[in-house]
């Protein structure tokens, strides 16, 4: 690289390379090795490819390639009724279908000005936070799995996930493809028995979190592998539009539950954990801490949940035609900001239907985090982003 006086005038007052990946130069000995990690690599959580250029063990370039799981969701939705798209939203981020339902319902409710009954709001909050517990527990499990601890931590997480999925099945009828929320409420009401079952599961959750922390937190191998690895600077995270636990692990205090207070989140007391070191360990730790905050929210919601209907009496199921207009509804999904942008032309199906998926946008900074690290750490950094390919490719 030549650095003449004219070049310096082009560089802004900001840190050099603040908005682009750092340039890692090969050491000049031997040739670069180009590796295609994926699309069927076991660590890629689905079908995703990373084209990596390696100098020995060091990553010089990394190009994420996605689109293998593209299912044309957005275009399909334009030819379908508003209700018809609801079951398809389950299949975006299939680890947390209920928050997908919620975001879509929220966007349509904004479009039509539809009210949601109190009880439905509480049910949504309970189910949304249970989803967050499921997602974070399994995200940690997968992260540890990618470190080489095959099985044990993941199965511990899945044991707890199973209990929560049974709760989902008892109220929605399905473990994952729930299709539960409707514009103006929820499809079925929770029975007292179901709420009692949530309480039972919730009482067991702190013990699970303790067990998980005992198992993992102080583990020297885990710390050696994750601390100082995959650093994401806050300014880059903000510029790239990264949201969710990724952004908070970079020390930026931004939680849409606090910022937007959608639903009834202004009524709950909870804290937003923030990272200090911006590395993989922080991302792992943030998820553990957020899980514990979620227990608190579910507890408050279970205590306060009122009676009454779960569907607004004026809500329409069929023949649903919103007035012409547009709306953007967003929620704090477990993976970040999940938004649905809808434009209505007054017809029975949306004129434009666009999703802002947290997984895809969090993935765009993958190269910045991976450059200069070892190839074994790429898998780990990728795991710490916590993506689901169904949402990346849609």
């Amino acid at each position: 690289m030549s650095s003449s006086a004219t070049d310096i005038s082009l560089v802004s007052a900001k840190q050099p390379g603040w908005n682009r990946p750092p340039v890692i130069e090969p050491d000049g000995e031997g040739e670069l090795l180009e590796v295609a990690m994926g699309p069927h690599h076991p660590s890629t959580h689905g079908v995703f490819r990373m084209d990596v250029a390696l100098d020995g063990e060091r990553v010089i370039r990394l190009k994420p390639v996605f689109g293998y799981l593209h299912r044309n969701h957005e275009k399909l939705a334009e030819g379908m009724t508003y209700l018809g798209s609801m079951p398809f939203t389950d299949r975006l981020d299939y680890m947390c279908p209920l928050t997908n339902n919620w975001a879509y319902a929220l966007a349509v409710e904004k479009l039509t000005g539809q009210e949601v009954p109190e009880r439905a709001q509480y049910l949504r909050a309970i189910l949304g936070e249970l989803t967050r517990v499921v997602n974070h527990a399994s995200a940690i499990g997968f992260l540890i799995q990618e470190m080489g601890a095959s099985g044990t931590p993941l199965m511990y997480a899945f044991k707890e996930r199973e209990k929560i999925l049974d709760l989902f099945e008892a109220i929605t009828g399905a473990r994952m493809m729930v299709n539960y929320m409707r514009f103006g409420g929820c499809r079925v009401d929770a029975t007292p028995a179901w709420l009692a079952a949530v309480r039972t599961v919730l009482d067991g959750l702190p013990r699970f979190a303790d067990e998980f922390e005992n198992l993992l937190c102080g583990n020297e191998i885990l710390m050696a592998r994750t601390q100082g690895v995959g650093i994401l600077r806050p300014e880059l995270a903000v510029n790239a539009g990264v949201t969710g636990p990724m952004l908070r692990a970079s020390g930026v205090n931004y939680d849409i539950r606090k910022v937007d207070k959608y639903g009834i989140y202004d009524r709950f007391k909870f804290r937003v954990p923030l990272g200090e070191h911006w590395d993989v360990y922080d991302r792992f730790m943030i998820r553990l801490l957020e899980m514990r905050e979620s227990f608190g929210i579910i507890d408050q919601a279970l205590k306060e949940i009122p009676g009454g209907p779960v569907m607004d009496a004026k809500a329409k199921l069929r023949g649903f035609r919103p007035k012409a207009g547009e709306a953007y509804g967003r929620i704090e999904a477990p993976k970040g900001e999940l938004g649905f942008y809808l434009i209505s032309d007054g017809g029975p199906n949306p004129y434009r239907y666009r999703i802002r998926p947290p997984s895809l946008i969090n993935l765009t900074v993958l190269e910045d985090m991976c450059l200069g690290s070892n190839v074994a750490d790429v898998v780990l950094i990728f795991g710490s982003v916590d993506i689901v390919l169904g949402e990346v490719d849609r």
Partner: protein
Amino acid sequence: MLGEGILKGLGETARNFAGSFVSAERLTTVQYPEERVAPIEATRDFPFLVYDGTDWEAGLRCVACQICEKECPPKCIYIVKSTDKKPDALGKPQIYPARFDIDISVCMSCQICVEVCPFEAIKMDTEFELSTTDRFGGLLYDKRELSKSNEHFHAIHPTEAAEVDARLAEEKAKADAKAKAAAAAAAAKAAAGPAPANPAAAVKAAEGDKKE
């Protein structure tokens, strides 16, 4: 001390391992084909058509209104309306589905057909062992394969089925009252009141009345 964290973690796994011998709660795996967990009541997978009484063809509640066909997101339902009319459960002459096919290889179990059906004619089944060697014909269910009795519905979703029966009984009572009033008005045609098409529905209706 280096290694303390690892030992602590191993302690946790050892506790779980040893615990699995004494506490059944820690044994979470079920050996599937031999052992089965009891299904959760709300479970759903694929739709079926409900019929009242014993004759599946006469007792079908479906009147081929084609609402489910229109609302189905993946468009897996195919209905052909009949050209003639047959008496339905209430004894009223109705159009019936000459053909009612569901391709369950396309169906995504979303339950929207159940929600939009105004006649309580289509419900979700819980049968999940449906594997077949014929992936085209074997997964395309016709009217005969889809028809299941109301008793089956009661067996798999007791709470929902009881609600549905109560609702239908209410409707029937209203229809009967209306018919009676009409009959009273036209006293000469007293015999014109609709006779229930099948005895089972009538018995159920009577039970529903008793409850209320």
